[in-house]
């Protein structure tokens, strides 16, 4: 449905006119040429987070070709053959070329999912002028869901495409539209695409894992924490289907982040609820998180395949094949196990209770939940100061050796501070939040990379210890050893930088930025 340059699409306001009456209002001497009709199937792809759309693109398969279309102009930016209609694909799976490049710019991690498939029926007429010369084509388009059981009704369109050189003679062409001519409205490609998506309602439409809560500083913290928990819990649910279908690894990733955010906020703001209830929710979330660990590990290391391969000299590269094929097998197993859990009564029971707990709007007893009624702004300022202090104290205490344990702990402190900042972001001046987050970024990156490398090393070490002695065990051990050496060297470099980076963060400037952020709150 990409637009031939210069096509004008019209949507009728109100009832559809009779298609048979096209051309009845044409000026004297003008006429309509023979009608032809055709059918084509259109399949629209995008990632779960609609990254193509956010980048101003539509991704559409039509007649064996995948087209990348500019939303504003409707013009095709790039094309690549796509023989089948896969339920989803990664940009990296496409053949080298502009289309692949454009989609990689939208997302490398997320799969492009078949978001909507429609059959498009087109009836065409030629609009002829007094000389019986074709000056434009008139198309009547109706879309129908591919799924015949669906009762979705898409809006219909007329479109007029002037031939080259005839764009200026539009007014008589418009008279070819059936009555009432003044009921039409010109619609853009973008609008048509958006209507299709709104009508088709693909699963998880409008999904974004970004926290964008608009909090009221004067409302009780109880109220606002519940809103956060509601949001993160809905994120968990929104990702279930993608996890089950194993579309890409980000579904599980977002699911896990939501669990972590829930846990972190519940723990950091522990006076907001009855501690008994909080303990129950925390235990359940912790258990759930644990059940995802193995699957996430398989995902993460499978994603590292290219990176690991490139770190090794070519002679050792094939030796990693058994490592990755074992990972693939593990992943299948863990996926099956976790999916079974997702459909289990234990899980649905927990989620139901969790949502009930969150939905409970009545303020808890101040005896057991002393914070509950406090104004959100006060709590925000207090908890953020406390979390910042913890980061600073722990950071300053970190010895010259910079032990693993110290860095691990500090990373968690930073993450907590970050979750709080993100949760309360709407209470602060927007610029100040962005500045604080930027100030924290270098430190967080340093700690994040350190822990990440440590975790990888641990994983590889455990593989090393379990390598079967037969089937090329020696070369695999060599390969893993090579990786460990590289990762170790990298990690130690990161460690060396810690003190310098931390003292950059532990500065007057940071203090001032946080003051600026929190003044006015409490």
């Amino acid at each position, binding site marked *: 449905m990409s637009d031939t340059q210069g096509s004008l699409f019209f949507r009728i306001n109100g009832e559809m006119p009779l298609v048979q009456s096209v051309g009845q209002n044409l000026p004297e001497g003008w006429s309509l040429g023979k009608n032809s009709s055709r059918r084509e199937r259109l399949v629209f792809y995008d990632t779960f987070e609609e990254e193509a759309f956010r980048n101003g693109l539509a991704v559409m398969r039509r007649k064996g070709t995948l087209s990348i279309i500019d939303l504003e102009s409707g013009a095709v930016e790039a094309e690549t053959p796509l023989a089948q209609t896969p339920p989803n694909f990664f940009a990296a799976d496409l053949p080298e070329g502009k289309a692949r490049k454009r989609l990689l710019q939208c997302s490398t991690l997320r799969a492009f999912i078949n978001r909507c498939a429609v059959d498009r029926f087109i009836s065409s007429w*030629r609009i002829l002028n007094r*000389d*019986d*010369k*074709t000056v434009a084509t008139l198309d009547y388009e109706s879309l129908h869901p591919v799924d015949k059981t669906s009762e979705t009704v898409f809006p219909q369109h007329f479109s007029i495409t002037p*031939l*080259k*050189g*005839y764009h*200026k003679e539009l007014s008589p062409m418009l008279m070819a539209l059936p009555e009432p001519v003044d009921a039409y409205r010109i619609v853009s490609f973008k609008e048509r695409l958006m209507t299709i998506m709104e009508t088709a309602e693909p699963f998880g439409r409008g999904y974004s894992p970004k926290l964008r809560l608009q909090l009221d500083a004067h409302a009780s913290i109880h109220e606002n924490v519940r809103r956060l928990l509601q949001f993160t819990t809905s994120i968990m649910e929104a990702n279930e289907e993608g996890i089950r279908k194993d579309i890409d690894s980000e579904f599980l990733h977002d699911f896990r982040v939501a669990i972590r955010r829930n846990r972190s906020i519940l723990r950091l703001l522990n006076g907001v609820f009855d501690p008994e209830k909080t303990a129950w929710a925390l235990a359940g979330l912790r258990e759930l998180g644990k059940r995802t660990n193995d699957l996430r590990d398989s995902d993460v290391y499978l994603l590292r395949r290219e990176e690991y391969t490139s770190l090794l000299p070519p002679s050792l590269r094939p030796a990693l094949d058994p490592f990755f094929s074992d990972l693939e097998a593990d992943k299948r197993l863990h996926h099956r196990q976790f999916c079974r859990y997702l459909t289990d009564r234990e899980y649905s029971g927990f989620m139901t209770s969790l949502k009930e707990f969150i939905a409970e709007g009545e303020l808890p007893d101040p005896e057991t939940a002393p914070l509950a009624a406090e104004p959100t702004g006060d709590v925000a300022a207090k908890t953020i100061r406390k979390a910042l202090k913890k980061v600073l104290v722990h950071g300053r205490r970190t010895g010259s050796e910079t032990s693993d344990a110290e860095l691990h702990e500090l990373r968690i402190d930073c993450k907590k501070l970050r979750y709080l900042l993100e949760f309360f972001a709407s209470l602060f001046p927007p610029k100040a939040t962005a500045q604080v987050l930027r100030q924290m970024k270098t430190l967080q990156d340093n700690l994040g990379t350190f822990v990440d490398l440590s975790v990888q090393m641990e994983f590889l070490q455990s593989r090393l210890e379990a390598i079967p002695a037969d089937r090329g065990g020696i070369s695999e051990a060599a390969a893993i050893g090579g990786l460990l050496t590289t990762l170790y060297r990298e990690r130690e470099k990161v460690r060396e930088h810690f003190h310098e980076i931390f003292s950059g963060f532990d500065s007057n400037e940071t203090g001032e930025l946080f003051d600026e952020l929190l003044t006015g709150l409490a």
Partner: protein
Amino acid sequence: MKTIALYSIKGGVGKTAAAVNLSFLAASPTTPALICDLDPQGASSFYFRIKASRKYNSEKFLKGNSKILKNIKATDFENLDLLPSDLSYRNLDIELSESKKPKKLLSKNLEGLEEEYRYVFFDCPPNLTLLSESVFRASDLILVPVIPTTLSIRTFNQLVEFFTDNGLDSTKIVGFFSMEEKRKTMHREIAEEFQNHPSMLRQTIPYSSDVEKMGLTRAPLNATHPKSNAAQAYSKLWEEVSMRIDS
């Protein structure tokens, strides 16, 4: 991009008929084609039912590129566009003589078409002027319809001489017999005599009332009656021409 001029100093020999049918045959999705009507009488524009916009004139034509591109119109046939002529074209020669390099002007003005078209046809007016010289230089092939008469052969030879005398590449000139009437002895004899002449194509176009009727149908014969004798002859002629031009 390959450029083919339909040219003859004589009128009424079948230039326009050939330009219309050959351009129709040349146009395909991989080889989009353009026909430039250079004759102020606008016969090829008429055959395609196209009129120039009111604002279009010879001045715009001489300005070239973007002005030309803007005035190109799609025909009713896929991948075939036309640049209509305008009555003001009758002054082209005077206007050309006022420009700096009149003989090279046309090739320069058509640079913008390079990307869009694989074949460009010029339907030329019947005279030998500055414009013709500009066309000669801009064309890869000058296709000359020759009615099989002694007089026409003479005119053809005069054209070849003109090329040699003016430092133009005479190997670009290729003739074909047009409006051939097999029942006329002279036609038969001349056609036979020149059968193997290196500047003449093998294929001839017969005299046919179907070609005349194009004036009524206002469409290429190859679009309306592809099976007719004359249409088949144009097809074979195009095969020969495209072989020459693409080799």
